[in-house]
């Protein structure tokens, strides 16, 4: 080992506190990037592999009733690889001990063996016996929610007939990765689950012998789903087809893709910011560290080392520091990435998990971090090697201070000398002070932009579930009914008010743009669930025309006054050009509203309702639930409170875990910056402080001078950080837009406060650590040697 390398080793040991602090900063950036990118990659890969292995269909279609012989015709359509016809129905389930009605989606299985498409991953139990009509396989999340296992039984109302069903197996399906009930935003495994029964048994229950009401297709490689869909629609039209759709519109897949999109935004923006901030801080800290090596650099040059050799020596030094951080970040990022992926996988219900992060994120993170460190060091080393060796070895001339300006106003007259020292130091090196403040500001900003998710989500819940919705329960009917059905429900126990809605599946078209979604018909004076914008205003729905969410309008490229082709995939399947009358902002989904009467006019089905919003007296809720379970007209029951709970719960499981990692990384950033700032200030000013000790200043008094300076830069950094945090959050929320969510820009005062407190704590701890060093300041050594 050369002498220079030995010096390097010992320098690193001497600077170990700072080495660790810098490694923390670097590791934060690297860790966040790897965690985010690797979980994203893993989820994508897992989903893709799951779909592939279990042959997830690519085109889906629903009909009223079609004969099984049609299957052969569909199979002959060009581009079709395989066809599976099925019976799919919703039914109300009754599990003992749970008052609310549960919605079950029943899907038929072939009499023998796995279906051709949408195969099941049997987790326990066995396959259904061919001749048993009461055997059922249930979804694993639902089974877990109720502790059900093979051998248990439960009751279900299939087309008005209550049946006792025997669980024989528990399974997962690519069709229900995101197991979401009708009208829900989040999976709620207590209130919704998929069930699989033998085809014969289901056909008998729903009078669909030799028929099907649902079919799924896989396509030949390279064939265009839209072309196949068009032809398929032609075939199914006569059988009450409501328009086939591609995999991207399949509910579970749509949610997964949205979540992945959300994760993608998160894993691009936040880690990029983290990495950039970490790079900036590494750069700043190392530049100051190297600047202090000036004498040694002069000495090395005096000995005859070339500029290149000296530069390389310090390059190695910073590479070791940053390298340690990179390694630490790799390890932490890998571990957390795996953990994070597992958390997501649990929500998504994959039967297996592929966590095999590629080299990409690791390389990117390492290169960015090392470059930032090297660039920071390079500036300082260049400054030092530019000096003649003799000059470099002399202590730098006393820096010139000048009177006047900020440091000598009337204010200054009131200050004692130590305070004046602090102030002058800051005014003398404003850039350095600013950079330190900027570092602290970045830590605060990162913390705010991580913590604000909680505020945004609370705000979203508040607006979406509390301000916009006033119904306690929303009931979905099996078929659209006459308005008189309202009176039936008004008479149910505990019902205080009933309001009708009609929600139909529709395809919106404008030019070449297209969106398949829901069209809500509501009363113009709806009170329980009016159209509601993100600003908290009720949006008036005019007697005719469409009121679109801005997100949907943007997707279609339309403005008020434009016409949108609306094809309603129900009833007579009208396809009409309807004018857009108004737009409104929403946080969740891409809703479209219309006056209920106008919608019914389009359908030529006057006075029909399909959904009922109920205002319920809580005391009688149990009785109402019992009644609803027995009502054949009811296809689905959605409880608002439950929706809020699952929304929070699900986000707590996923988003919040993500956020808490960001907060932890933010803390380590703050600590790294604060510690290095104080530590470097100590090295730079050790001599001065020792002199003061000799002059009779106590430890506390010199701590005041050193930590006062650091403290002041921190204090300046805090409001700066709050501003930057607001900016970052704005950046994140504007980039974070999916079809499912728009994250509102909401930062509660408490969030600013918390971020500030956390950073202050980190700074305080670093201050204490450095103060311990002040206590051990070697007075004689400092005075004897020149710098």
């Amino acid at each position, binding site marked *: 080992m050369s002498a220079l390398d030995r010096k390097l080793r010992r320098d690193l040991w001497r600077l170990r506190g700072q080495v660790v602090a810098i490694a923390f900063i670097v590791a934060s950036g690297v860790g966040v990037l790897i965690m985010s990118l690797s979980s994203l990659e893993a989820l994508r890969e897992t989903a893709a592999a799951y779909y592939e292995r279990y042959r997830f269909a690519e085109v889906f279609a629903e009909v009223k009733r079609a004969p099984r012989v049609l299957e052969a015709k569909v199979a002959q359509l060009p581009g079709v690889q395989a066809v599976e016809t099925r019976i799919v129905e919703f039914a109300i389930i009754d599990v003992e001990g749970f008052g609310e009605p549960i919605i079950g989606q029943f899907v038929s299985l072939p009499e023998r063996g796995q279906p051709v498409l949408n195969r099941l991953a049997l987790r326990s139990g066995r396959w259904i016996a061919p001749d048993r009509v009461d055997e059922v396989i249930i979804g694993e999340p639902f089974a877990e929610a109720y502790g059900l296992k093979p051998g248990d039984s439960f009751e279900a109302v299939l087309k008005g007939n209550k049946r006792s069903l025997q669980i024989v197996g528990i399974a997962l399906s690519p069709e229900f990765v995101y197991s979401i009930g009708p009208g829900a935003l989040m999976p709620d495994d207590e209130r919704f689950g998929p069930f699989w029964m033998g085809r014969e048994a289901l056909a008998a229950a729903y009078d669909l012998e030799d028929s099907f009401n649902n079919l799924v297709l896989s396509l030949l490689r390279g064939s265009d789903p839209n072309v196949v869909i068009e032809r398929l629609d032609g075939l199914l039209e006569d059988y009450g087809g409501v328009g086939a759709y591609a995999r991207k519109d399949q509910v579970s897949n749509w949610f997964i893709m949205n979540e992945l999109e959300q994760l993608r935004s998160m894993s691009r923006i936040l880690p990029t910011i983290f990495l950039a901030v970490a790079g900036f801080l590494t750069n700043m800290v190392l530049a100051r560290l190297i600047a202090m090596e000036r004498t040694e650099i002069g000495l090395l040059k005096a000995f005859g080392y070339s500029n290149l050799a000296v530069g390389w020596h310090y390059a190695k030094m910073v590479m070791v520091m940053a390298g340690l951080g990179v390694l630490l970040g790799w390890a932490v990022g890998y571990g957390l990435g795996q953990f994070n992926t597992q958390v997501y996988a649990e929500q998504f219900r994959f039967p297996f998990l592929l966590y095999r992060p590629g080299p990409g994120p690791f390389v990117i993170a390492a290169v960015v971090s090392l470059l930032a460190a090297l660039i920071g060091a390079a500036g300082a080393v260049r400054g030092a090697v530019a000096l003649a060796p003799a000059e470099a070895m002399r202590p730098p001339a*006393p820096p010139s201070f000048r009177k006047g300006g900020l440091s000598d106003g009337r204010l200054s007259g009131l200050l004692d000398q130590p305070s004046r020292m602090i102030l002058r130091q800051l005014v003398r090196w404003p850039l350095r002070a600013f950079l330190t403040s900027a570092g602290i500001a970045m830590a605060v900003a990162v913390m705010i932009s991580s913590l604000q998710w909680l505020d945004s989500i609370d705000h979203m819940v508040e607006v979406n579930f509390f301000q916009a919705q006033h119904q306690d329960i929303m009931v979905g009917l099996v078929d659209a009914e006459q308005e008189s059905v309202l009176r039936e429900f008004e008479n149910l126990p505990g019902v205080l008010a009933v309001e009708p809605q009609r929600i139909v599946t529709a395809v919106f078209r404008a030019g070449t743009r297209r969106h398949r979604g829901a069209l809500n018909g509501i009363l113009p004076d709806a009170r329980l669930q009016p159209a509601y914008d993100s600003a908290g205003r009720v949006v008036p729905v005019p007697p005719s025309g469409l009121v679109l969410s801005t997100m949907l309008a943007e997707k279609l490229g339309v403005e008020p006054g434009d016409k949108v082709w609306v094809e309603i995939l129900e009833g007579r399947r009208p396809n009409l050009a309807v004018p857009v009358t108004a737009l409104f902002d929403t946080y969740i989904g891409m809703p479209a509203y219309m006056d209920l009467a106008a919608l019914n006019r389009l359908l030529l089905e006057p006075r029909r309702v399909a959904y009922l919003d109920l205002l319920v007296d809580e005391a009688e809720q149990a009785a109402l639930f019992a009644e609803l379970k027995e009502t054949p007209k009811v296809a689905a029951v959605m409880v608002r409170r439950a929706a809020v709970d699952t929304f929070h719960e699900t986000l707590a499981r996923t988003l919040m875990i993500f956020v808490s990692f960001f907060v932890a990384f933010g803390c380590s950033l703050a600590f790294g910056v604060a510690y290095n700032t104080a530590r470097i200030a100590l090295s730079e000013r050790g001599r001065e402080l020792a002199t003061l000790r000799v002059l*009779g200043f106590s430890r506390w008094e010199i701590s005041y001078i050193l930590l006062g300076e650091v403290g002041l830069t921190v204090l300046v950094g805090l409001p700066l950080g709050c501003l930057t945090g607001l900016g970052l959050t704005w950046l994140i929320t504007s980039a974070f837009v999916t079809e499912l969510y728009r994250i509102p820009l909401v930062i509660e005062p408490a969030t600013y406060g918390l971020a500030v407190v956390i950073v202050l704590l980190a700074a305080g701890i670093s201050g204490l650590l450095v103060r311990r060093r002040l206590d051990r300041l070697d007075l004689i050594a400092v005075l004897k040697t020149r710098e």
Partner: protein
Amino acid sequence: MSARPFEDSAAAAPRPSITAKGLTKTYRTGEVEVQALRGVDLTLYQSELVVLLGPSGSGKSTLLNILGGLDRPTAGQVFFDGAELTAFDESAMTRFRRDNVGFVFQFYNLIPSLTARENVALVTEIAPQPIAPDEALRMVGLGERLDHFPAQLSGGEQQRVAIARAIAKQPRILLCDEPTGALDSKSGIIVLEAIQRVNEELGTTTALITHNAVIAEMADRIISFADGHIAETRVNPDKRRAGEMDW
């Protein structure tokens, strides 16, 4: 000064200012033990100016640091005003330095961010009976440069600010470690004049370390160090004015 109390100790018994008894100091640097002091007995009397001479490593600075409360001996005692300094704890030691000792170093150790006046005020703000910073600076001949920052002063001027800073608290003892070591002779003499003036006008007990035998001529007593102990103590009958010296 007409009286020469140190020529004949019986004449007017001078009062001791600080007394060291049997001081030893051993430094351990890694495997090596260095005996910096090997049993030093010494008394500095009030108002006297003592010059400590001796080669590098002879223990002068170690002694000065111990007398000034910057360091502790391995064995032995130091008494100041009847109190045993060597038994003081950290905060009592700080108190002692703050109230009683003035230091002047070879490398002035001024605070670059404070003006001359402010550097002095740094000390007067925490001392119990200080003289005004302006007055202290006038005593060292810097009455005109009160508002200059260290970077705007020459080396000699910086050292005089350091002296002003040391004496502004009216210390009982002034300890100067090679105060002219970094200065040319002309500046050095101006600095020594300042020290002499302070010694005479304020009656501050002054100990001055130097390599330069010429400087010894301004002392009341000259103590020569060699190898960690006092080799010779000599009373100087022909005390000279600093301004008359030359090297």
